[in-house]
């Protein structure tokens, strides 16, 4: 194992897959010399050239269409949309084209592409550069949705996403880019659709995604000091969702807290809650399910408001105590 940041883990996955398979290429705004707005692809253009690390004009629909067309041809494009907020411009290509072509063509084509995009708030970039829109993609048949929370997961899931024969939305988090963690020296992949129990516990299950995972783990430590033993489940991929791992935990603990950054109403937590109460796990629930999520507002600029909008460690502790209490 070596220590690296989440951004480095993403870069290493890109680099290794580009070496392994020459049909893999990067396409997006400023992914070359600039290295992407967060420096994730920095240096790759020097190694692979401008053809395989392709800067584009500011044309998100064009980028997504180019990636989709290339994928139809058997290439494995990894497209980047600089901020998740701008997937709004590429939705037709993503949802009507990339996601549906295979089905519409009777299963006779494949669209193996990855769309990498950073979501989330916390950088003071306000309402056009901070959204968490994964719930939209979860709702679209034909897409897969991945949201890693650690460098280890980021690398293993990205490699798996690139090798997957379907369009995969790979959501990175800006605040995670600089977080560090161990990553194996040797090649590995994490199958899409496998949740990870980041902490085992008896008293309640906390299902958390992306930036919420480290916050929930920190909260769990505090809770442990207060005699509350939380189990933390990170689905890692929201579509497909590893519901078995979630149900197992719920059946064990009987209490569920779901934490995500995206706006609460219509967020991915709703689907997770609905799956639980549709399943046999419902019969083991000792209390209402609690969702802790972003407030239903656009992301505000002011630092305090921005922080207040999204669940923080202390909010998680408080919610868990109330749920168990």
């Amino acid at each position, binding site marked *: 194992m070596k220590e690296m940041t989440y951004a480095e883990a993403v870069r290493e996955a890109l680099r290794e897959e580009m070496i392994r398979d020459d049909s893999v290429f990067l396409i997006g705004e400023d992914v070359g010399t600039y290295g992407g707005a967060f420096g994730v692809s920095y240096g790759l253009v020097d190694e692979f050239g401008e053809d395989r690390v392709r800067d584009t004009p500011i044309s998100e*629909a064009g980028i997504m269409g180019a990636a989709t067309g290339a994928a*139809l041809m058997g290439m494995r494009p990894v497209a980047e949309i600089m901020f998740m907020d701008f997937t709004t411009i590429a939705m037709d*290509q993503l949802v009507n084209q990339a996601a549906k072509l295979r089905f519409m063509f009777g299963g*006779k084509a494949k*669209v193996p592409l990855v769309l990498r995009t950073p979501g989330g708030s916390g950088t003071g970039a306000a309402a056009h550069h901070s959204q968490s829109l994964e719930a939209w993609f979860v709702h679209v048949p034909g897409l897969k949705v991945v949201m890693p929370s650690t460098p280890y997961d980021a690398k293993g899931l990205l490699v798996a996403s690139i090798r997957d*024969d379907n369009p995969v939305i790979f959501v990175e988090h800006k605040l995670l880019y600089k977080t560090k963690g161990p990553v194996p020296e040797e090649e590995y992949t994490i199958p899409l659709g496998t949740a990870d129990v980041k902490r085992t516990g008896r008293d309640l299950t906390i299902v958390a995604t992306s930036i919420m995972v480290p916050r929930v783990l920190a909260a769990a430590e505090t809770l442990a000091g207060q005699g509350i033993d939380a189990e933390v489940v990170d689905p890692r991929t929201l579509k497909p969702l590893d519901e078995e791992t979630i149900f197992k935990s719920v059946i064990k603990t009987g209490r569920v807290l779901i934490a995500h950054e995206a706006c609460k109403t219509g967020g991915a937590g709703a689907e997770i809650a609905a799956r639980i109460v549709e399943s046999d796990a419902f019969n083991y629930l000792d209390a209402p399910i609690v969702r802790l999520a972003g407030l239903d507002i656009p992301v505000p600029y002011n630092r305090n408001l921005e922080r207040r909008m999204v669940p923080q460690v202390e909010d998680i502790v408080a919610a868990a105590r109330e749920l168990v209490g």
Partner: protein
Amino acid sequence: MKLKRELCVRMLSKMYEIRIFEETVDDLFARGLVHGTMHLSIGQEASAVGSVFALRDEDYILSTHRGHGHCIAKGADINLMMAEFLGKETGYCRGRGGSMHIADIEGRNLGANGVVGGGIPLAVGVGLSLKMRQTDEIVMGFFGDGAANQGAFHEALNMAAIWTLPVVYVCENNQYGMSMSTNRAFKIERIAQRADGYGMVGVTVDGNDVLEVYEAAAKAVDRARSGGGPTLLECVTYRWKGHSKSDQERYRTKDEIEAWKRRDPIKLFRERLLTEGVITDQEAAGFEEQASRTIAEAVEFAKSSAEPDPDTILEGVYA
């Protein structure tokens, strides 16, 4: 241009196939055998055939909601097309796609598209792949006049231009996007003029003259294949039928339609071939009859094909 008999015969025959295919599905719809909606290209056959015939078999096309002509011109199996119309398991898309989504991946037709302008950016990706792989194949992307006002058109043409991609964009200007005439939707005369804004070659031709289309397309194809980059080729033509099955045609006059019918691209081509002695009247009638037989057989094939098994409904979403 000295007319090559073999090419002309194939073109004329394809035009008949397209015409009769569409008249037939129109009729099947009227009789309740095909459901949903469809967009007929009757009157536009020269544009489809003239441009696709400039391609090699290994080249690709991307088509539109009004795509039967492109599909047939590219060499699709009519049986599988017809079966798709009837929603049968034997159809190109196993009955999942219907008229608006027919693709013939093996035949290198990467599909019609229900989204106006939706295929234009896809052609960038196809062209990019062909270029990155250093093949000498090219891609031809079709769209209508209406689609030329979609943002996707703009982004895609610019990308194709700056990367000098092997793409030929064919804009079939049939004067209307649904009820919106080009006069109302554009303040310019020729859509191909927009090519200038991308540093791309733009050409406008009489889209009812199959040979004029063919020649212009051949030049564009050469340019793309030889590394000269993309072209925007505008074929000025007209659709005889309503936009789709919901059209009351309140936005145009009978006179206008009749005037264009007098410039029937099939009749024009047939007459020219007769005049120049390339084929005889009897031969022409033979091609038309042959096309009729092909379509009639396809109807039989489609009718006798099985429906998809409902238990397979979840198939094909993911690879």
